[in-house]
């Protein structure tokens, strides 16, 4: 067992997954990932580059990925905003890469050392246009390690950029962990390089491997050559990637269940908020309230089936988020009124205490509306139907 920090677990997970390239720009609370990579990559003959800003970091990661490297960067909200332009390019060019965003409270410089879950929608929709937005989260140090490996594996297998949302607490938290020997997936070279179409499937040839390859952010044909005015082709090329992610299904939809078998009340939480949710489940169970937790490790695409199944057999769902209600919008859309979905939100940089989550559920169960306190805004919505 080792005592390691969340950010260190992220770096170790990346190395286990075969990451050989890191480009980044320092920012709290993600910098330790960068520092670890600066320490560990050179001795392994991997590449570490400190770029001039996050725009450049994202660009370098994509360039390195097309050189054949498993590449990553890590940042926080302000840097993640700067990466959106090139993240869109990574999506358009089906470039495997991993982007870690350790969230801090925004907007703007905000509360730079305090945690947040404010980048949930940015992770999904931050760049212009539509794209798959595969996004994973973690609530413990051990999970950071596992999810980082998963992020690389998904990215390599499906040729999509994968975003890993951490936060200031998970990044800086230290826990004793065993690092399991997880399976590693690596992008596959085409069986017949001569017939290789760079945007035909998920096989991959890097630049400089004997066959000239064209990569462009313009809409393009399977050959890579630009088709900048052929809308039908552009729509078809995008749809292939979206279909690929849909078809991956359970392979990328990671969830964890706690006490859900007989649950009447479901908490749906992700990232750091899943920790107090665990505590709340224990508190409520001790009082005889049958609460359970569905923890989402994958938030995009949303594990809709698991959420609908839970909605169908619970009286109430609660979604605690350290934002003013982001993932809950998609959860409500999935639930389609099967059961009431409460949102519990705060944007003061404080993690929900377990008692706060438990209190909301206790009062909701008793049919009492929860008072709105300055520290957190609780939004109670009527059931849709």
């Amino acid at each position, binding site marked *: *067992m080792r*005592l390691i920090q969340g950010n260190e677990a992220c770096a170790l997970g990346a190395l286990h997954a075969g990451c*050989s*390239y890191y*480009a980044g720009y320092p920012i709290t609370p993600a910098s330790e990932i960068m520092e670890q990579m600066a320490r560990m990559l*050179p*001795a392994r*003959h991997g*590449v570490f*580059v400190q*770029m*001039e800003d996050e*725009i*450049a*970091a994202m*660009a*370098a990661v*994509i*360039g*390195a*990925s*097309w*050189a*054949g*490297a498993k*590449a990553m960067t890590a940042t926080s909200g302000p840097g993640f905003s700067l990466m959106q*332009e*090139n993240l869109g*390019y990574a999506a358009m060019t089906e470039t495997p890469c991993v982007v870690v965003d350790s969230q801090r409270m925004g907007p703007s410089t905000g509360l730079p*050392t*305090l945690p947040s879950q404010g980048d949930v929608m940015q992770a999904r929709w931050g760049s212009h246009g539509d794209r798959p937005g595969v996004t994973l989260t973690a609530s*413990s140090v051990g999970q950071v390690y596992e999810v980082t490996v998963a992020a690389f594996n998904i990215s390599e297998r499906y040729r999509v950029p994968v975003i890993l949302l951490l936060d200031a*607490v998970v990044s*800086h*938290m*230290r*826990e*004793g962990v065993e690092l399991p020997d997880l399976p590693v997936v690596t992008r596959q070279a085409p069986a017949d390089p001569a017939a290789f179409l760079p945007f035909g499937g998920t096989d991959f040839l*890097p*630049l*400089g491997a*004997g*066959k*000239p*390859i*064209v*990569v*462009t*952010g*313009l809409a393009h044909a399977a050959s890579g*050559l*630009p088709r900048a005015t052929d809308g039908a082709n552009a729509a078809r090329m995008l749809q292939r990637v979206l279909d690929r992610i849909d078809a991956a299904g359970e392979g990328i939809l990671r969830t964890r269940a706690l006490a859900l078998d007989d649950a009447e009340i479901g908490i749906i939480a992700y990232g750091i908020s899943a*920790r*107090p949710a*665990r*505590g709340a489940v*224990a508190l409520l169970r001790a009082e005889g309230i049958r609460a359970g937790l569905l923890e989402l490790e994958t938030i995009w695409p949303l594990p809709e089936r698991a959420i609908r199944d839970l909605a169908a057999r619970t009286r109430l769902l609660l979604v605690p988020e350290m934002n003013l209600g982001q993932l809950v919008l998609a959860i409500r859309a999935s639930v389609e009124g099967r059961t009431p979905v409460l949102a519990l939100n705060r944007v003061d940089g404080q*993690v929900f*205490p*377990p008692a706060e989550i438990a209190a909301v559920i206790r009062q909701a169960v008793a049919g009492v509306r929860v008072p709105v306190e300055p520290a957190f805004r609780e939004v109670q919505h009527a059931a849709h139907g």
Partner: protein
Amino acid sequence: MPRMGEELRQYLREELMPGVWCPGCGHGNVLRGVVTALDRLHRKMDQVVCVGGIGCAGRSPFYLNSSAMHTTHGRALAYATGLKTARPDLTVLVTMGDGDAAAIGGNHFIHACRRNIDLTAIVYNNGTYGMTGGQQAPTTPAGMRSTTTPLGSIEPPFDISELARAAGASYVARTTTFDFEELPQYIAEAIAHPGFAVVEVLTQCPTYFGRLNHLGDPATMLDYERDLTFPIEPMTREQVAGQLPVGRFRRDIRPEYTQRYAELCDRAAAAAARDGAAEEEPLPPHECALPRDPYEVRFSGEGGQGVILAGVLLADAAGSEGRQVVHTQSYGPEARGGACKSEVILSSREIPFPEVEQPDAVICLSPEAMRLYTGLRPGGIRLVEARACLGNTPAAGDMVLPLVRTAAEAGGELAVNVVALGALAGRTGLVSREALQAALRRRLKPDLWPLNQRALEAGLVLGAR
């Protein structure tokens, strides 16, 4: 001008031609310079990657029969940096417009110059944004018209070559599409140059820059380029006041980035082989039950007092004795000063919520932390540094201890965190001396061991007193 030689067609991706460039555009002349240079250098096209930005010049990679990355506006150099650092053996050319290089990508441009990474940046400078319709560029000469400066530009233009030189590019040349011989020569020199090389080419945009400024047809615009410039060496034309110098401004050999990085990797690998970590004997599980399970500890003080390290050492030591542990930290923007805290939860079971809610033990090292971080579980203990009481009234039951003085006596005030940790362990028995000693060795550099071992012993005695 002579027609392009048949032997050069192998370098072109003719299926994408004719491309986006207007009749009379100078960009084709620049591309001729590029393929002529590649031919002279006998570069194999499968080992060449051309990276382009956005705009007319950014399209160049499509027309070269090499691998191509057509990237985002201004970012081509950053993409190329990723590619080149991952594959230093490739020949990487970067084609950019003046807007790419000097406006939106100006930051990437100066940093690529500074890093001296072996890329060849070819800046097609036509003094305007052609693809978007002839707007002002950062290179539009003062007084010249564009669609966003209909009355003439009032801004001084960037001198891209001067900028490249100042930022540290090790090869810098400027030429024009008029200078038929120099253009391929400079590009060939730049590609062969082992470092960051910039070739700025003044090129004509008859569709916008020429038309809006009444510079005549493309051929007349070549005369304009000739008259705008003077060659620094050899002086084939006479210099007139206000003319831009053209020629090779710099060709220095200085350490190249990917080369230096490879050397750094070798050093790091050698050091890693030398310092292979020795496996430690695992400690037996801690025998004593926790005073409360889970047990919550808060170290508080100001930045620079080692508050976070104290928490890490406690968590590390307790974890090594088989406890479940979680450590969290909270701090402000200050690296030194400013209140901060470092919290540890110890338990015999899995810890659902990682933050301390009501600490069983609190250590206060600074007056501000003593005021700010309140709340102690009834029956809990608080160890307070004597100086932290400055302006604060200790609560009944506080253990006020001379932690700083004890650290100073042990050899340095810096070790106050370890004295405090020792005092906590001495008072509560949360962790064994052996586990703390081992954690110190794991977490600190050997030259800091003696001081911190003494501080730990002094703290243990102080706490047990």
